């Protein structure tokens, strides 16, 4: 019997939470791709795309972060994972905010720092999504 008590399920994320979380990958990843395209072509429209993708990525991350903080406060056992999740999201928020300021510079003024920050954000978005979604709904020990 005692074995059964230690077993638990990770509840699936709310559908909206999951959608917003996974959405950060194409948004921040898209910003990175747009920055790479700008670096190769000097076509200034690419850096504009990167700016807007990053801005909407920030909106998504903001929503997910609120969700994550609420989950952290409500968690009783196993606080490590919710804590990691919230920290990575917070790091993504901060990096994305800096990236928004850097991308507000005109033309090549945003580079190369903007590209570096876009890469950091893209990686953090992947990590956050992995922590947030991996193993949900499966039996845990």
């Amino acid at each position, binding site marked *: 019997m005692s074995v059964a008590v230690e077993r638990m399920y990770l509840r699936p994320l709310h559908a909206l939470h999951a959608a917003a979380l996974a959405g950060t990958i194409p948004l921040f990843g898209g910003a990175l791709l747009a920055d790479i395209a700008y670096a190769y072509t000097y076509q*200034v429209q690419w850096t*504009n795309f990167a*700016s*807007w993708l990053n801005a909407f990525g920030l909106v998504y991350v903001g929503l997910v972060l609120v969700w994550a903080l609420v989950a952290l406060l409500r968690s009783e056992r196993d606080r490590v994972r919710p804590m990691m999740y919230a920290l990575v999201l917070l790091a993504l928020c*901060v990096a994305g905010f800096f990236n928004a*300021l850097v991308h507000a510079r005109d*033309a090549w*003024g945003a580079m190369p720092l903007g590209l570096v920050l876009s890469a950091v954000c893209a990686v953090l978005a992947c990590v956050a999504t992995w922590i947030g979604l991996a193993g949900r709904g499966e039996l845990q020990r």
Partner: protein
Amino acid sequence: MTRSVRWSVLALSALLVACGSDAPPPQFGADPAIPEPQRRLVPEMNIAKPAPWHELRPTVPQGYTISAIATGLLIPRQTLLLPNGDILVAEGRGGGAPALLPKDVIAGFLISRGSTKVESGNRLTLLRDADGDGVYELNTVFVDGLNAPFGMALIEGSLYVANQDELVRFAYSEGQTRAAGAPESVVKLPSQINHHWTKAMAASLDGRYLYVGIGSNSNITERGMAAEVDRAMVWRIDVASGAYKPYATGLRNPSALAIQPGTGTLWAAVNERDELGPNLTPDYLTSVREGGFYGWPYSYWGQNVDTRVRPQDPEKVASAITPDYALGSHVAPLGLGFSTPAMGAQFADGAFVGQRGSWNREQPVGYNVVFVPFNGGRPAGDPVNFVYGFLGEDGKARGRPVGVTVDPRGALIVADDLANTVWRVTPVR
């Protein structure tokens, strides 16, 4: 959690603060200090909030007096003296380029708070002082239905008006108070996007040509080079045929043009690029050489390369002309008029420059009309404050001077596009 939030806020504010003060070093004349560019995370903005003049008046030097000769106008920008002493005032607001980046949405809102809320006049108003007592008792609409008129010039029997999209012509006879009919088109002017929409204008001494200033379509090419075709240059337009050619290029926003009396040389007041720090890039006054290239976008103040522009163009940079006279960074010159001995001995030889004032540095600069003394046809000496006090001690803007015109009988006419007023400064006799 809260600790990490606090630390990131601290780190953020440290980054924002660690950028130094912006006390303006003297940046006037032929050899201004050109500091290293500063790239701050958050560009400085300090938009002076508007306030009414009430009983206050702009300050003028001792021995001069100032009066408002027209109020309640619809965004007066430039004025033109007609041979009989009448004054035409061009009123309007152009542009309206769409927001390109998230920051444009924010910046556009902030900048609009420092400007008048009045609807664009799109008209010329005629002011007349028939009895010469300094009171312009006639204030009447000369023509309306224009499109953000700015530059004006009179060549014999024709009045030319540079709308934001087209150069047009009216027949004019002395004493007229209302345009006889619809304008005739001379030539279309570049107007796509129209980020810098003002079309400054001056007529050559012989009346054959009109020079029109066409500002760039961006701060520093952020709308792409395709948007900069036929921008950031001065056109010379043949009045008879409408044929035009680029007369000088690389002038980011040549927002005031004037012909120097005597020599017939074209001079321009130019608004330079932003976001390189509070002390870059100096706006300037320069004689304009035919075929000359003045740097934008590749370089500033001669051959200082702007690394924000890609691809770069070292050949163009090598050919860039250093302007004649720096007015200071961010002062925003929008008016230029050469003086005359009737303005009084101290201000007889030189040029008046209307400086609308900064919005993107912490300590505001400009918000005044300065006099740049000339000697032997060249600028000589520091600018002298001629009309000031537009920015009050309380940090509020009561007005913003733009177009300046010298009345040969001895008066300076100043258009104020925030107070919607036309001021007249005269020596006390």
